[in-house]
Each structure stands twice: as C-alpha cells, then as structure tokens.
C-alpha cells in the first residue's frame, strides 16, 4: 500500500511539471487563441540562460528574477517580430511558424550548450524530510510554486483591468479595438507572460529531470493533454489536469498495464474523457445556436 502512496506522490511531482507548462500554454491561449507548440523549448532555453548566469557566479534568486524578466522581454519581442507578420495567416500556417520556433530553440540550445546533462540548483533544501520520504522538499516546493503562479494568473485574468483587456483582445479583436484596447500589445503582453511562466516552469523542472536540450520535449505532450483535459481556457483546470495526468500515468504504469503501454493507455483515457466532455473538465462549453 505504501507503494501506492509513493506512486501518487511521485505522480503529483511529475504532474506539477506538466501543470506548470500547461499554465504557460493556457496563458498564451487566453491571450492569442493559439497553442504555442514552442512553449516547452522556450522554457528550456530560458532555463539554460539561468544556468549560464548562475554558472557565471550570480546568486540563485538574482538569476531567477533576471531570467524571468529576460524571458518576458524575449516573449514580447518574438510576438512583435516573428508572429506579427503571420497574424492574419491561416491557423495552420501559424502552427508551422511555432514548429519553426521549436526546432530553432532546440537546435540552438544543443549547439551552444551541447547535449551533456547539466545540474540545475534548487532553492529548496536538498535533504529529504526525515520520516516522509515520499516526496522531496524540492518536489513540494515546485508544486507550491506552480500553485502560486496559478493563483496569480487567475487573479490577473479575473480581477485586473489588464487581464480583462487581454481576454477581450483574444476573444473579439475588432470589438476590443473599438473600446480602445491596443490589441497588438495585448498579444505581445500575453506572449511575454507566457514566456515568463515557462521560464519559472523550466527552473522548477530542471532540478528534477536535469537540464538538457530535450528536457521539455516529452513534457509538452503531457502539458498539452493536461491543458485540454482541464479546459484550455481554465488555468485551474489545466493545473488539475496536470496533476491528474501525472498520477494517472504512474498508477496505470505501476498497477494496470506496465510501463510499456502506460502512455498509450493514459492518452486513450484522456481522449475518452474528451469525447464525453469535449470542452474538457472545466472548459467553457460553446453552444452553437443556429
């Protein structure tokens, strides 16, 4: 039975990883109605930036904050420079641009930093809490950070005028312009925030999985699944989705079908749920009136 709980807690930690990237995906979807497939690679690249800063001697929290800021600016720049020209292109063309960004970041990281794994420090104590060995302090800390980001994000969208303006810009750009919202800058802001969230996610994830250029490639699918599972326009749903996917995957692998097929079965279950509830657990159901 202890193995069961061990798997659950281990699943919560990996679920936290998925949830943190899923938050970035939700952020960018809320702001632009696009799913940025390059989000994982951008997060990985931000983490490498942090690593470079720490390696050059900067204390952890300095590097953390500086990386988040640089990532924010980077996200804004990417939106204005690279995404802006294809704003009015068909959706799939924009997807191809995202894929282009994905391979560029991955390839650049591999070229600059090579493919050896690197340790990334954790701000949380490293010794396991005696008596409670199911989950490490960093694991708990990472989940905590994810929840804090979730609350901040929820509050931002729900209670601030800027958040409202952003949602309006994504939902109905024409009307938004009519009430004076600078739609272009809302999109850029959305990208900046998503990049910043991604950077945080990467820096929380790297101590667990080790930093290498392919660190986030596996995570992206789970984050995507988690975000849709929970409802792509619900940050809370995405986080819950992430935890559920993480725990589900572990339990399926340990007790149901073995590790070989656990990914397949987990995905089948998720898609199954989506077939029954096509907007995800907490997503807004769009009703089409004819």
């Amino acid at each position, binding site marked *: 039975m*202890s*193995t069961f709980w*061990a*798997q659950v807690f*281990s*699943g919560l*930690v*990996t679920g936290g*990883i998925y949830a943190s990237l899923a938050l970035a995906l939700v952020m960018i979807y809320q702001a632009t109605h696009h799913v940025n497939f390059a989000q994982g690679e951008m997060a990985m690249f931000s983490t490498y930036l942090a690593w470079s800063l720490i390696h050059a001697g900067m204390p952890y929290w300095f590097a953390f904050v500086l990386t988040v800021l640089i990532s924010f600016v980077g996200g804004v720049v990417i939106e204005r420079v690279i995404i802006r020209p294809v704003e009015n292109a068909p959706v799939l063309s924009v997807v191809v641009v995202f894929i282009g960004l994905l391979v560029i970041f991955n*390839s650049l990281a*591999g070229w600059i930093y*090579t*493919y*050896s*794994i*690197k*340790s990334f420090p954790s701000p949380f104590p490293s010794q*396991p809490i005696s008596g409670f*060995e*199911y989950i*490490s302090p960093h694991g708990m800390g990472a989940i905590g950070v994810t929840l804090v980001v979730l609350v901040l994000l929820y509050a931002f969208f729900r209670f601030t005028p800027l958040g409202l303006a952003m949602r309006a810009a994504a939902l109905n750009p024409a009307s938004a312009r009519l009430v004076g919202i600078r739609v272009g800058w809302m999109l850029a802001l959305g990208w900046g925030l998503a990049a910043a969230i991604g950077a945080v996610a990467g820096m929380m*994830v790297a101590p*667990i*999985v*080790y930093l*290498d*250029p*392919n*660190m986030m*490639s*596996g*995570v992206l*699918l*789970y984050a995507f699944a988690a975000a849709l599972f929970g409802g792509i326009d619900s940050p809370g749903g995405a986080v819950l989705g992430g935890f559920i996917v993480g725990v589900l*995957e*572990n339990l399926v*692998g*340990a007790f149901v079908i*073995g*590790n*070989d097929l656990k*990914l397949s079965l987990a995905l089948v279950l998720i898609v199954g749920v989506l077939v029954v509830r096509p907007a995800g657990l907490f997503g807004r159901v769009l009703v089409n009136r004819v």
Partner: protein
Amino acid sequence: MKLKQVFTPAALAIGVVLASSSAFAAKHYGPGVTDTEIKIGQTMPYSGPASAYGQIGKAEAAYIKMVNEEGGVNGRKIVLMSLDDGYSPPKTVEQTRKLVEEDNVLFMFGGLGTPTSTAVHKYLNAKKVPQLFLATGATKWGDPKHFHWTMGWQPSYQQEARIYAADILKNHPHAKIGVLYQNDDYGKDYLKGLVDGLGAKAKTMIVKEVSYETSEPTVDSQIVQLKGSGADVFVNITTPKFAAQAIRQAYDIGWHPVQYLNNVSNSTGAVLKPAGLEKAKGVISTAYIKDASDKQWDNDPDMIHFQGWMKKYMPNDDPANNFNPYGYTVAQTLVAVLKACGDDLTRANVMKQAANIHHLKLPMLLPGITINTSPTDYYPLQQLQLERFDGQNWELYGPIMGK
C-alpha cells in the same frame, strides 16, 4: 635492323622501369582515395532524441582534425563526411546511399545505433562497402560468416551484463533483483545478457523488470516500483540522463540496493556528480576506457595528453563526458587500420586489415586491455574490468575479464 636493335632494348628498358615502379608503389585505390586524401562516410544522430550521442561524432572529427594537422596517414588526409540521420532509419538509408553512391566514400565508419545500422546492414554488405566500428554494443555485429563487411567495436552489451550476472551469483546468490531498462534494442540486449548469465536462476532471482521510454521526463515512478518490489539488487540499464535520475531517486526514497550500472552511463563528472556523489557510493560498474573525470588518472601521461587534446580541439565541450574518450579511441583504431593498409586502400584491404588487429594498445584503454580481431573474430574489444565507486572515484578491482 638498326632500328630494331635500338627499339627492342629501349622498349624493354621502359617496360622494366614501368613495371618496377608500379610494383614498388603498389598503389591500389578504392573509391574516394587519392594520393592526398581518403574519404570516409558516417551517419550520426546530431538531432532528435538521440542527439546526445552526436558527441561521439564530434570527438572523432576533432581527433581526425589533429591527425590531419600532423600530416595525415601515410601522407593522406582523412576526410570524414559525417551526416545527420536524426536516429531515423529511413534517413540513415538516404544518407548512407548518398555517401556511397554520390560522394564515393571508401567505407562507412562508426555509425551509431542499432536500428539505424540495421537499416543499411544488408545494403552495405551487398555493395561490399566496409561498415566499420559501429557505435553500438549490439551482439549481432560480430558475424563475419554472414556479414563479412560489418564490424562493431565496443564490448557487447550482453557480455557486460553476463559479467554482472556472474558477480551477482558469486556475491549475492540469494538476491532479489530489480531491473530498470530502456525500452529499445540497447536496453533489451543488456537484459537478455543478464537473463542468460543468470541461467536457470533468472526466473527466481529477477523479481521486477521495469522499462522506460526516452520521451519520459523522469524515471522516478519506475524507481518507486522497484523499491516496492522488495528488490535488494538493482541492475541499472539506463542512458546518462536517466541513470543520474535513477541513482538520485533511489537514494532519496530510502532504497539502498546493491547497484550495478551499465558502462554507457558511468561517467563520474557527467552522471554521478549530477546525481550526487554520496548517493552513488557503492555502485558497481565495468570499464574498458579511462574515465575522463576520474582523479585516479590525473598523473597518467596518456590522460594528460588527452586533456590537452580536448583543450585544443574541443575547448567548448564538457571534459567529463565519456563520449569524448570513446570517440578519441575509436578514431585511433581507425587510424591504425588505415596506417596498416599502406598504399593498398581498397575496400577489400581495409576490411582485411580491420580483421587482423593484434594486441593493439591504445592510450585511453585501461591498462591490460587491447584490441584484437581475426577473420573469425569480429569483436575488437572483449575485455572489461569491474569497478566500484567509493564516493569520489571509481576503484577498479578484480581481473580483466573476457578474452
């Protein structure tokens, strides 16, 4: 009459001169060879999920660059055309065909991966192009009878696993074994060797086998499963990133089995340090190459020379990455074979020389380990030595095993 008297001896003289010059020079060139260069081809995963292994290609290219700067082999520079196949077999086929049919390379060298090399295995043998020193430990490459033109290099995975099995039977005869393996040919080959080595006791001793995919972010869940199975011996068949995770996770959840770690992932600096040196204490592995980050070789002249080479030719690369001494040593084997060919640089002769290496000592191989091949033995390296990690360094112990 006079003309004939002059003509015949002149003709004879010219004939003798010509014949003797060709006999002395005895230059036989296969495709891709000139008086000044030898072109060889390679496919490596420089992108995609296996891109970490591309470091081997980088190291080999850097070594060859040094050799060329020092004059080349018998006056010829080696031109290594290394193409990216992204670990995708169809791409390997395409790139190999390009190298053989368009770039006319003399032979293929150091291809990485079992499925990728399998994809071109038949093709290269049918075209009689040597497929030398493949960068995979799969056992099937040493089959001169059916595939005369293909040869591996490193000690096979199965052989290494059998050494672990023998050690377990000797020192932990009542062990409960848990195995973590990568779900591909590399992992499964090791597992087979372990099971074969344990023989009849395999079924009772192995209590849990868990696999993982390289696309998974962590193997923490698998380690939890292994701990839950009650295993007290852990056979860790993982690639570097996952090896570090496994070692750390096992320690963190309070599981302290006797751990055997496969030698692909036993670098002190690149794997054990990220995992936590104190967490890797007691881990057992095997070695045939000196670990570039292990302090026991600090005063070894060969290691010093190697570090100097790295500083000069690969200054931005991680000196702890064990793929570098690996690539360095394979490249040295290549140079030795090319040297032995002399001016007879045909594909047949390259293969002949490759299949006739006797007691080749190379600087980064462990003392006592040499490279040996023969027309019936296509396994260049078959020796390994056990080592145990003491928290700081690897301590080699026991005899050199294998032939």
